[in-house]
């Protein structure tokens, strides 16, 4: 698949949150205001891009040549956890202001299903190094898009009247459901028309 195809696929057609439910916990938990939603979105994009490249290298250069593919789950999650820790330290050193903005969200990302999800999906789809990186980057962008939309809707909803049992999490899920319905317009047929 071409790079444009991969980007459109993971940002719109197979949006991680709205079609695959990966990364749903931060989607509901951190979408109360736009500022933190954007922070979380960028942090996730950063980690998915780097992590999918790193896990590609580990899968192709270490696990497969040594016939250790069954250790995939353990190594990937450890690599992601180490990577998140490393990124935290590097960002703290290089750009304290970015660290301040992302700081609290970075440790949470280790257990974000989206990161391990894109790493595993990229390996299963047999992407090459650059394709894996692009897939990771666009999966993160898709996450950013969805959480940004969600947070603006929720900010707006604060001023509206909502039936009591639906307040908070339930209405957030229903909003997400309606957004997913809208995203169904982006399907495989549209993708074929766009990139031929």
């Amino acid at each position, binding site marked *: 698949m071409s790079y444009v195809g991969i980007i459109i696929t993971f940002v719109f057609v197979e949006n991680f949150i709205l079609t695959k*439910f990966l990364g749903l*916990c931060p989607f509901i938990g951190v979408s109360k205001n736009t500022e933190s939603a954007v922070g979380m979105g960028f942090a996730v994009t950063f980690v998915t891009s780097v992590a999918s490249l790193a896990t590609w290298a580990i899968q192709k250069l270490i696990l497969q040549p040594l016939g250790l593919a069954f250790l995939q*789950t*353990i190594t990937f999650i*450890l690599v992601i956890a180490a990577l998140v820790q490393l990124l935290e330290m590097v960002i703290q050193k290089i750009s304290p202001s970015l660290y301040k903005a992302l700081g609290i969200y970075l440790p949470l990302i280790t257990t974000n299903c989206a990161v391990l999800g894109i790493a*595993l999906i990229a390996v299963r789809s047999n992407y090459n190094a650059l394709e894996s990186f692009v897939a990771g980057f666009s999966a993160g962008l898709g996450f950013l898009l969805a959480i940004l939309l969600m947070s603006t809707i929720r900010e707006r909803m604060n001023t509206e009247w909502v039936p009591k049992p*639906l307040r908070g999490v339930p209405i957030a899920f229903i909003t997400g*459901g*309606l957004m997913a*319905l809208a995203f169904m317009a982006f399907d495989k047929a549209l993708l074929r028309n766009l990139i031929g």
Partner: protein
Amino acid sequence: MGNFTKGILKENPIFIIMLGLCPTLAVSTQVVNAIGMGVGVIFVLLGSNIFVSLLKNFIPEKVRIPSYIVIIASFVTMVDLFMQGYAPSLSKNLGVFVQLIVVNCIILGRAEAFAKKSNVKDAVLDALGMGVGFTLGLLLISLIREVLGSGTITLFAIGNFDGVIRLPGLSESPVRVMALAPGALLVIGYLKALFNWTEARRSKEATA
């Protein structure tokens, strides 16, 4: 006994604590997938709770999270390989979500919140309760989605029975959207609202 029953209703992982939702919604299109996922999660939860509880005096406080993750990932690998070997069609249906049990927050959550400060017996009861609660929640969501979305109930194939119960009327003209992605979010949203409502009513009755 309280350690077992609290996970089923009072602290149900899906509806009350709201942890581990990612795999929940993705595999809830068919009842058989929900059962498979539930069994996988119960096994991993049981294994990780037992080992975390056994090793609680040996794991240094600072590296506890990575240690828990290694324990959990080992059990997930077991489940993954076992499923590939003995239930290949289930493994294919669940796809990448079997491996994603690693990042299911319930398991790490129970290790951190319960198993690391309890004895093995309590940890086992807690794991079983939470696991059964998770499976029941998943079953409820998948039952609603499959009945409304495709008008069928898919179970295991035994002998001549192909494992699919077709409901007359619904299976000819199902509410297709329930089986697709938006349906999952709508179902869990309304179920959570229902839980909130009954909870509010019960506490009102208690004070009245």
